[in-house]
């Protein structure tokens, strides 16, 4: 029991702290690393909630994929040691206020609500169940989103290509720019 809670608080502390660091760090690569840590800690939470599959996905896709993508783009666009100028205090303050207001609103409202405990028997979330559900055509089946998301990914890929594609007058221009 206690171990649970300690585990949870540890993870949450990590999440909060690293989140804050992510958004405040003045070195961009460090921020990326903090983000990675947040994502990893989150996957820890998923483990705690017994969603091993998702935790794994979180680690591979999120932490492994997106963060790497981000780091690559950082490398393409900035110097590693580049330090940002601190954000203007006005902007920080306003942003902080807005966020704080939002957080207070959300938290008070959440605390206000009485969550009833589940009466149904818990479902065993193993790979089999996930796979079955994912490919099911019936109620609680996710084949359609699964298919549609493939279109999404394809579209995103093409979208990326469209923007990144070289050739045509555009390229010439950008080369001129470099010179």
């Amino acid at each position, binding site marked *: 029991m206690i171990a649970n809670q300690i585990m949870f608080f540890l993870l949450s502390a990590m999440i909060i702290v690293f989140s804050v660091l992510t958004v405040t760090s003045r070195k961009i690569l460090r921020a990326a690393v903090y983000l990675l840590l947040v994502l990893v800690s989150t996957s820890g939470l998923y483990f705690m909630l017994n969603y091993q599959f998702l935790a794994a996905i979180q680690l591979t896709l999120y932490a492994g994929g997106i963060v790497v993508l981000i780091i690559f783009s950082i490398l393409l666009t900035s110097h590693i040691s580049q330090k940002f100028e601190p954000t203007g205090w006005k902007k920080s303050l306003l942003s902080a206020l807005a966020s704080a207001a939002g957080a207070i609103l*959300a938290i008070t409202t959440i605390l206000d*609500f009485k969550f009833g405990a589940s009466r149904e028997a818990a479902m065993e979330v193993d790979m089999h169940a996930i796979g079955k559900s994912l490919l099911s055509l019936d109620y*609680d089946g996710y084949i359609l989103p699964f298919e*549609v998301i493939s279109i999404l990914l394809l579209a995103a890929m093409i979208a990326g290509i*469209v*923007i990144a594609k070289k050739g*045509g007058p555009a390229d010439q221009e*950008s080369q001129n720019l470099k010179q």
Partner: protein
Amino acid sequence: MSLQSLLIMRHELLLAVAAIFILTAEIFIDPARKKNISLISIVLFAIVTIAGFLPFKLTGTLFGGMYVSSNVSTLMKNILNIGVLIILIQSVTWLRKDENSDRVSEYFILIMSTLIGMDFMISAGHFLMFYIGLELATIPVAALAAFERYKNKSAEAGIKLILISSLSSGVLLYGLSMIYGTTGSLYFFEVSQHFPGFNLQILGFIFFFAGMAFKISIVPFHLWTADVYEGAPVNITSFLSVISKGAAIFILIIILYAIFPSIMETWQKTILVTSILTMTIGNLFAIRQQNIKRFLAFSSISQAGYILVGMVGGNQLGMASVIYYILVYIFSNLGAFGVVTAISNATGKENIDDYNGLYKTNPKLSLIMMLALFSLAGIPPLAGFFGKFFLFTAAAEKGFYFLVLIAVINTIISLYYYLLVVKAMFINKNDDPIVNFRSDFPTRSALLICVAGIFVTGFASIIFELIKGLSFGN
């Protein structure tokens, strides 16, 4: 999967097939003949559009409630198809330009995939489908907004759109998570049964609404609109202002009517507040615009405000009038954008000042522009008048006279700035007017469709009656 289900899903399926066909064509076709891709795509899309109208059995629930098709949703999809078809035809000239010619098929694929997303969104029976549809309808658009990658503005539009839309989907998802937590399901029909309106639910709803409002560019979630519209290529701007917005409004009205009737008072208040803000702010900003795209952006914001007015009653007339108005709006706004596109393609000019004296050199374009703007302003006998009339009637039916009053007063402000453009074209003198040019066939036919739509949609009461018959509400 029976044939029946295939027919029910024919919009999405055909679109997907068409997109894949184009993709294949892109890969296999001889580079010298790639010009024909436009033609092929448009023909394909026209087939899809026509297929959408075929009178097969339209209603049904598939995938255990994941996908719901009703008469209304089919109607909405058809309306969107019409709009997209016009936009595609309008794009041809632009795509023929050298700098775009290497990405023609991508353009079509992205547009079609976007449309697939919208169709799924409209037919969603589950918030997951809704969400994926929403994203599918957004992400490619961001890329399209950044399509002219050699232009700063285009890139800026792209980044603004993608970042803000991600934030808004974050907010929307947060809201959805609350809805999920308080109702235990994300199926529409189950959510609607467990929605008594706890505070947390309202919170979730408002956050969800904010996410939707972003798509519709409702004040105060609208600020991206003008910049993105200005920066994006004209065709994408018209796509954003008409199709994206229209689809979002469709799904919003379905969700409000079908899922959240139990908290109607809350969403009425929400819409009341936001619609007043939207109309007023949109108009106030539009008054001073110099760039015609930016101008139309703000105009489209205020139009969204009027549409919200129609929605506020939660009545059947409201839904009918909103759908009808979107149809009218498609023709009107695309008419205006069609002229802007033609001029932008021919001369690259996009400022209202450049339009000074346009009537002397290009009378037909000016007339079409004027008709389109008047239709947007709600001047009879153009379709916009009927559209606005029904929208406001719908609100008045539920006693929102005050809102209607504000709305009609706002239409006066909007008339003012539409007239500014008309004035520029017809009255202002210009030493260096846009030279006379003849648009190519696609542009002309697209404009013709729009003008015909502007006239016919209003007079032919059967269209409205049809929509009314399919709509629901209390």
